[in-house]
């Protein structure tokens, strides 16, 4: 049902031209949160360096996966890209225009092209609004279409995301988590965006429902020519859906590469450890693979370690690592890594997902 209606729409919406060009270019993005103390005289004691100077781009029609552990700054990155969180520094170029410098009115125009799907399908839908009102709200805000056209468009979108158009007058509590997330997808799509930040869109869902949503996101991308920034902590899902993958650690990108390169031949020791930590649903693989068990916890981003931020947990760290910060460098064609000793480590350690 969903597929036919997507196909019908595809003719009017597909934007295949400019495929593979850089759509979004993020340069040296920084987001610091002040730590404040005091009741009457508020003092700023320091800053949480949530995102600390990261650069990446997203090409038209691709999915860039952004992975990392909780607190690494991946969600803040997504919000800062959309200007939902004002960056402390850096630039976000969308089709060549720097979103950071735009005034609110100009920005609102761009908001139509850039949308977001939130993590928690329970918190991101207003419980007092009907599904129809939730999905149509962006149209109202942007003064688009007549009420009758809006209603039609809402029904059409419900069909596209695999829900019964008959549900328009229901309230969010009447839906399961998976269905709510579909409502969130419909809301993100109603302005015909080009670029969508998917912020952990499936991590609140049950395993059997996750696949339904992943497939829906992939279908929509194919049919509508969407570009995704897919933020997630589930490395298996990111492998499935992404074209390229960036790995974040305490506010920095430590590795960025094409999907196949990153998973088959990861170069940064953090990526290696991360991949080796993911359990694989196959007992024969589980028995034979070797694990890198990292010691300790993720450092506090208010007081990040000196030099390479991973040196406190890195099994290969040398004295130099705590002194200077390794830059993110292109060490192989379109494979970027921020580690002084990646080459040495690659020669010594087998890839984490290889079974010997």
């Amino acid at each position, binding site marked *: 049902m969903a597929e036919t209606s997507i196909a019908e729409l595809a003719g009017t919406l597909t934007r295949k031209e400019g495929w593979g060009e850089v759509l979004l270019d993020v340069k040296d993005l920084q987001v610091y949160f002040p730590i404040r103390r005091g009741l009457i005289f508020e003092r700023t004691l320091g800053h949480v360096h949530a995102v600390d100077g990261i650069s990446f781009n997203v090409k038209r029609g691709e999915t860039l996966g952004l992975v990392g*552990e*909780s607190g690494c700054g991946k969600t803040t990155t997504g919000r800062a890209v959309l200007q939902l969180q004002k960056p402390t520094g850096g630039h976000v170029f969308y089709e060549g225009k720097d979103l950071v410098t735009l005034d609110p009115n100009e920005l609102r125009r761009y908001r139509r092209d850039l949308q977001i799907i939130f993590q928690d399908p329970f918190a991101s839908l207003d419980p007092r609004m009907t599904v129809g009102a939730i999905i149509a709200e962006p149209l109202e805000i942007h003064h688009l279409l007549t009420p009758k056209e809006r209603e039609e468009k809402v029904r059409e979108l419900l069909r596209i995301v695999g829900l019964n158009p008959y549900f328009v007058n229901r309230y969010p509590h009447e839906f*399961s988590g*998976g*269905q709510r997330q579909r409502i969130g997808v419909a809301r993100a799509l109603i302005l015909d965006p080009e670029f969508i930040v998917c912020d952990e869109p499936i991590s609140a869902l*049950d*395993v*059997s*429902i*996750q*696949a*339904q949503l*992943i*497939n829906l996101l*992939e279908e929509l991308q194919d049919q509508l020519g969407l570009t995704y920034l897919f933020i997630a*902590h589930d*490395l*298996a*899902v990111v*492998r*499935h*859906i992404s074209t390229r993958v960036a790995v974040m650690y305490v506010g920095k990108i430590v590795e960025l590469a094409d*999907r*196949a390169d990153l*998973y088959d031949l990861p170069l940064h020791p953090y990526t290696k*450890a*991360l*991949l*080796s*930590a*993911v*359990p*694989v*649903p*196959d*007992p*024969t*693989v*589980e*028995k034979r*693979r070797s*694990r890198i*068990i*990292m010691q300790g*916890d*993720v450092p506090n981003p208010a007081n990040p370690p000196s030099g390479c931020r991973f040196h406190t947990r890195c099994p290969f760290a040398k004295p130099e690592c705590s002194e200077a910060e390794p830059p993110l460098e292109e060490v192989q064609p379109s494979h970027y890594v921020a580690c002084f000793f990646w080459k040495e480590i690659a020669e010594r350690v087998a890839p984490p*997902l290889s*079974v010997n």
Partner: protein
Amino acid sequence: MPEPLLEVKNLRTEFPTREGVVHAVNGISYTVMPGEAVGIVGESGCGKSISALSVLNLVPVPGRIVGGEVLFEGQDLLKYSDDEIRKVRGNDISMIFQDPMTSLNPVLSILRQMTEPLVIHKGMDMAAAERRSVEMMEMVEIPFARTRIREYPHNFSGGMRQRVMIAMMLACEPKLVICDEPTTALDVTIQAQILDLLNRLRQDLGMAVIMITHDLGIVAGLCDRINVMYAGYIVEKAGTEELFANPRHPYTLGLLRSIPRVDQSIRQKLVPIEGFPPDLTRVGDSCPFQPRCVYAVERSEEENPPLTLVGEEHWVACWVNVYEGKEQSDG
């Protein structure tokens, strides 16, 4: 043949609610041998946590156990008085919960919380209990255990808190540990640390483990045998290798096909299980998975299939042999 440590027989737990009776656990049976790791896998609401809470008679109100037996070393725990079962909890059988923040008391020091069971169950004096607690903290690799034990839960990170929980549960040397999604709230690298720790402790101390999780990857690496639950029923049970090599229940198959794997690039699309889990207030005669099942036959609608032996120690509750006329390799 050694005696099983725990034998759950035909356990049934219900929750009377305004919308009707929720049939959370519908007559499940499984055994745990001494030193064995048994997995219970299923999605939220399938009854896996409630079945574990029922073992220790900890079902929250208004829930009630309406049938079955829980034999621990031959004694039926469900017949125990409150005082008697209290001697078992935290002593012979311990439990680790999902959220280490809510399962520790925020206003008591770790020392106070760790020594409590030792004083109560083992009759130790404070000094001995403290020595033992520090030992346990060192065993779960908490650095500076001697000083950190005087701190409070908020001083510890999520992974460290879960280590504290594990240390606490180990203190009385339980024979059985029930882990209810012990790593779901943790990051993947911390999860690997905790699972690695649990596995080593199990081998060193010879405890049996029941691992309750939704993550097939975790049970694949840790468990000897696996029970798959759906809608309050065990729909398939087998040895770990057998289950992953020859999944026989359409639900198990569906789960395995619907999850992407980190060690493989799957070119084709994922095959999701369509629909969503059933309403547990309405349990009819039909197979509970039938509305979502691609293999369902007429009989699935009329009769709920019982668990049947289909291979060595491999039980499945399905009227259909999913491999008949189908390629075996696609599982």
